[in-house]
């Protein structure tokens, strides 16, 4: 027992919270298989969680980054909606091509990052206020661009949207006895790439470690010779850039533009990050954890839905409850750890 507690003590905060997250996810998934029947056992069920949440995974990676550096960005949902609408209008009304629409998405993300990052890092304005205004601006702009929701008809886009990548060997036999291949969408590949890249950046690059340093203790980071302002600025750039990519992946998944798109996505991203072991106070977090955070969040929603509570409002309540729970777990675990170190 003492050995275990010693191990617990020596763990970094990040890996401790990561362990909790992964543990919770597997327990939950196994619980779902046991209590909710075999549906959860099918690989496609799992892949569908990925397909539906590829965008959220990307947004959450950005959110985790900015949170690790001690900030927050609640504009990502609005940016997603704005990108969907702009790209939809461009593709259908202006007959644009798909490649340029991607550039538009990334351009909007980058512009958001530049403005928000500048206001937060160099003018020292609270990130929450800045991104709150950013969120409202994006939502308002979306309706200014186009009021009514509509589906994109652009052929090359629709083709791209319907591209399915077959995962070999994991298909299943459906009710009619026909073998159906398991598939993922393009967005999932992009999301997994983003997870991988962000993991590497945060784990091994100077910039990544600077995010941790600045989020952990701004003053110390300054004393250690880190450019704190630039680091904060970069964290917002990365977050908004990922919001741009995530926004496009979202657009690719839904294939339409609407002002109500990605409603509450910022909250889901924050919740996923926190469930994934990113501390609100900054300095602690892991992209792998965030990835599992998204999966946990969706799995519990699937469980809630398959338990008969399928009304829309349960989604919001479940997320808020999960968030609350993990905030409490975080503070309890960290407080205990602190106590044991003091002794």
């Amino acid at each position: 027992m003492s050995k275990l507690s010693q191990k617990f003590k020596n763990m970094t905060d990040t890996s401790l919270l990561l362990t909790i997250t992964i543990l919770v996810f597997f327990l939950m998934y196994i619980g779902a298989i046991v209590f909710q029947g075999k549906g959860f056992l099918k690989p496609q069920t799992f892949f569908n969680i990925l397909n539906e949440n590829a965008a959220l995974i990307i947004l959450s990676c950005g959110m985790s980054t900015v949170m690790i550096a001690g900030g927050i960005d609640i504009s990502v949902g609005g940016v997603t909606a704005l990108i969907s609408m702009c790209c939809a209008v461009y593709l259908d009304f202006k007959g644009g091509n798909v490649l340029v629409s991607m550039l538009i998405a990334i351009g909007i993300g980058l512009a958001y990052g530049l403005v928000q990052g500048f206001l937060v890092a160099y003018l020292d304005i609270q990130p929450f206020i800045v991104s709150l205004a950013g969120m409202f601006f994006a939502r308002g702009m979306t309706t200014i661009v186009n009021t009514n929701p509509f589906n994109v008809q652009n052929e090359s886009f629709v083709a791209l949207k319907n591209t399915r990548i077959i995962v070999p060997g994991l298909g299943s036999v459906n009710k009619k006895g026909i073998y159906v291949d398991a598939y993922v969408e393009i967005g999932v590949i992009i999301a997994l790439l983003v997870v991988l890249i962000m993991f590497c950046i945060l784990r091994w690059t100077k910039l990544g470690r600077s995010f941790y340093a600045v989020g952990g203790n701004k003053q110390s980071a300054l004393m250690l010779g880190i450019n704190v302002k630039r680091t904060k600025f970069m964290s917002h750039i990365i977050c908004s850039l990922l919001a741009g990519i995530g926004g496009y992946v979202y657009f690719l998944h839904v294939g339409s533009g609407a002002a109500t798109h990605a409603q509450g996505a910022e909250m889901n991203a924050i919740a996923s990050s926190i469930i994934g072991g990113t501390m609100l106070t900054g300095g602690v977090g892991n992209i792998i954890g965030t990835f599992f955070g998204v999966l946990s969040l969706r799995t519990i929603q699937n469980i809630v839905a398959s338990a008969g509570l399928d009304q829309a409002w349960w989604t919001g309540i479940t997320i808020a409850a999960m968030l609350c729970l993990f905030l409490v777990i975080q503070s309890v675990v960290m407080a205990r750890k602190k106590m044991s170190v003091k002794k």
Partner: protein
Amino acid sequence: MSKIYKNQIFIPMTALLILLLFNLIADPSFFKITMGLNSAGNPVLSGYLMTVLDNGSELAILAIGMTLVTAASGGQDISVGAAIAIAGSTLLRVLCGTNTRPDTLRTPIFVAFLISCLVAMAFGAFNGVLVAIFKIQPMVATLILYTAGRSIAAWINNNELPIISDPKFSYYGGFIPGIPIPTPVFIAAAMVILITLVLKFTNLGLYTQAVGINESSSRLNGLNPVFIKWLTFVILGLCVAVAALIKVSRLSSINYSVIAKDIEMDAILAVALGGNALSGGKFNMAASVIGAFVIQLLTTTLFKFNVPSDALPAYKAVVVIMLVVFSAPVVRDRMSVLFKKLSAESRKEAA
């Protein structure tokens, strides 16, 4: 002159005058107030200015609570819109029971209002606990209720949309027969008088400001900063319940996803426009209340120029960013340096 300039009310007042002047030049009909009969056959006053007063009421009420929260905790509550949905839903639920189209009200309006007050204050208390005890930044803490609130509101009424046919219920958001001025104006006035009395006859103002300015020395002077921060969130809860009564009464029904949408932004804006520091500390309640009406005036003006309601947030977001940028210490320092340089240069030139 410098005294007027230093007074906080100067800021919202100037904004108010600029907006009024703009309207006067653009279209003087903005100021026309006419007496007419409404659909119930009552004589009522109407006109853009009446709309501002009428629709600004909820905002003014929320601004009261928001000012206190801002002063004590140095952050803002972004869940007020969602909390209004909850309070409104509770109100309807108590009034209607399970029957969504009741002919008679199951409980007196007053009782239902009291219950919705308690519910709203409980949710305020929840926010307060997260902020004061768990020390989570106010805006992040209230983000939880911001997301869950409208869902909870829908859940309270089982996602049904009760409609109340009793005309008495519509008095609170409309007109009392025989009185040509909208009732919300009276309710807002009553709340303003109430908070004025509270600030006069209790130490609420002194305590919240002291805690917001210097928590450590407040504690050493015997105050309990945790309790005071918590209290401001509960008071905001009460303001939310009153605003919810007006909002629900206007429609005699509720729409969970639209009711009081984006009102948190307006409430925060009202506080900022009132010249109160969003980082907490000293506040001026009157300035916040005027700020609320200025925001409403801005909204009404934009409406008048055919800006669709969904696009409004974009305009307001620009105003918010401008406000925070110009009040940011970094910018202020730079500006004052620049000012000094300019005046020094002009003096040089003069010499």
